[in-house]
């Protein structure tokens, strides 16, 4: 009886989750009257705007990932090594972006870093891009930090550090040659989540007026019928790709030490 309800729940869930995916796929193929075709996809992929915004977002994502790694790995490492009592506080801070809505954060950016402020980031294209990148880093902070911190848990940070120090390694060498390779898998899974977040992000890019993929999708959605569905399919495929990469990468992860009891 229990099993029956479990299967029923699963079946209901499947229907709920499959139908929208089916709906968008079917819709995306209906552009040509009467037959299924890939016209909508061809139209989207040929759109120079699509290529531009997609490239922009991918580049932004890569820069965000780079910045995130440089910020998070040393911090998480240092906290584990030297300031373990700070860990709960840091963890709390890294979770804040999940609680404070992104729209509020970006509103603060606009007000704090406008052209007449002490740090007029929004005054130049480069500055605005940098601001957006910091915004993306904030949004991905919870995922990046958790991933890296979990990765650090599986290695003995202090022993590795002492061993490296006894061999004469400096901090930069320790971080880049010892710690980073050991948490690479964790860093990569954080990176793919970041990629998925940045590619789909709408609010920050729209309010900072940057030509990113999210606002482009929204714009297309407001003006076209079939192309948005094709875009949704593409976006879903990208998200799935990111998650699949995490899965593949984590197969190579070192397993956490098993407790004897």
């Amino acid at each position, binding site marked *: 009886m229990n099993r029956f309800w479990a299967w029923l729940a699963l079946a209901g*869930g499947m229907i709920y989750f499959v139908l929208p995916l089916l709906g968008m796929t079917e*819709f995306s193929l209906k552009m040509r009257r009467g037959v299924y075709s890939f016209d909508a996809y061809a139209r989207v992929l040929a759109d120079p705007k699509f290529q531009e915004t997609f490239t922009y977002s991918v580049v932004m994502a890569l820069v965000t990932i780079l910045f995130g790694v440089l*910020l998070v790995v040393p911090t998480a490492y240092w906290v584990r090594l030297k300031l373990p009592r700070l860990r709960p506080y840091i963890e709390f801070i890294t979770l804040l972006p999940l609680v404070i809505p992104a729209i509020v954060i970006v509103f603060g950016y606009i007000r704090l870093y406008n052209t007449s402020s002490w740090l007029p980031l929004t005054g130049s294209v480069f500055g605005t891009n940098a601001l957006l990148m910091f915004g993306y880093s904030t949004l991905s902070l919870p995922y990046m930090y958790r991933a890296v911190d979990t990765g650090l848990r599986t290695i003995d940070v202090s022993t590795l550090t002492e061993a490296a120090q006894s061999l004469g390694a400096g901090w930069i060498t320790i971080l880049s040659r010892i710690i980073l390779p050991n948490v690479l898998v964790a860093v990569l899974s954080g990176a793919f989540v970041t990629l998925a977040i940045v590619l789909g992000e*709408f609010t920050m890019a729209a309010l900072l007026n940057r030509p990113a993929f999210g606002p482009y999708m929204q714009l297309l959605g407001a003006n076209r019928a079939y192309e948005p569905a094709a875009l949704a399919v593409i976006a879903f495929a990208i998200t799935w790709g990111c998650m699949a990469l995490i899965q593949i990468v984590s197969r190579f992860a070192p397993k956490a030490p098993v407790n004897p009891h």
Partner: protein
Amino acid sequence: MTTQTPTASKTIMSRLPLNWLGVAPFALFVTLFLFLPTMNIVIGAFQNPAGEFTLANIQGLNTPSIISAYWISIKISLASALLGCLVGFSVAAAVTLGGLPKWIRSPLLTFSGVASNFAGVPLAFAFLATLGPIGLVTVFLRTQIGIDLRSLGFNLLSFWGLTVTYLFFQIPLMILIITPALDGLKREWREAASILGASGFQYWRLVAFPILFPSLLGTLALLFANSFGAVATAIALTGSSLNIVPILLFAQIRGDVLGDPHLGYALAFGMIVVTGIANTIYIWLRARSERWLK
């Protein structure tokens, strides 16, 4: 180590700032791009254009349209968080605690990872293509079965429409967060309860649920904030036709739709207050329920 000679405390003193220096980049980053912007909004909510202290902005929120925007937002967030918790919990429980075969677990978690990240604009498109006026399900029900969703009062651009859409990322998020917590329930607890004479229901009521309660609450608060701040899905789904807080704020930031720029700060401040209250309730309940935790 425990006996502190003067020299030892001296080295600690001189080493301390150096240790703290290691987290300085992080501190600088969160200050500049998390704390200051948020504080700025909070302060701005209590300032008039001349920079003087005022409560007028907060009072300005007290208009029927803004109040109703908050109210709908809170209702949608609460509904999608509660339903997401309930459904996500049932699915996760079915998979981790038996009932369903083990091989389902891994694909389910992978799919949850994808679906919880598949939010924003494309999600709205997917639901429009399914439940929108000419969506797959709508058309199928109308032409094949003769049920007109619209005449039954269902509209994607409504409370239930948005809730149903948000559930697409809420349920998977719940599954992702609660599965490890369910894994943490030891088999021995269930067995100990059972051999002491407890029924399955008694085990859940007296042991499993109290142990899971903090995680459940935390996830509920997170899901609430997650849908309360969701802008992209709402805008892509409804344009600006639905009067909810994130859309209102978005429009206000884009161009001054409220006729008073400082009302925007008050609006954003209100959002912080709402998610803040949700999390305070969570922390308070957690502290009450977690006396048994280290």
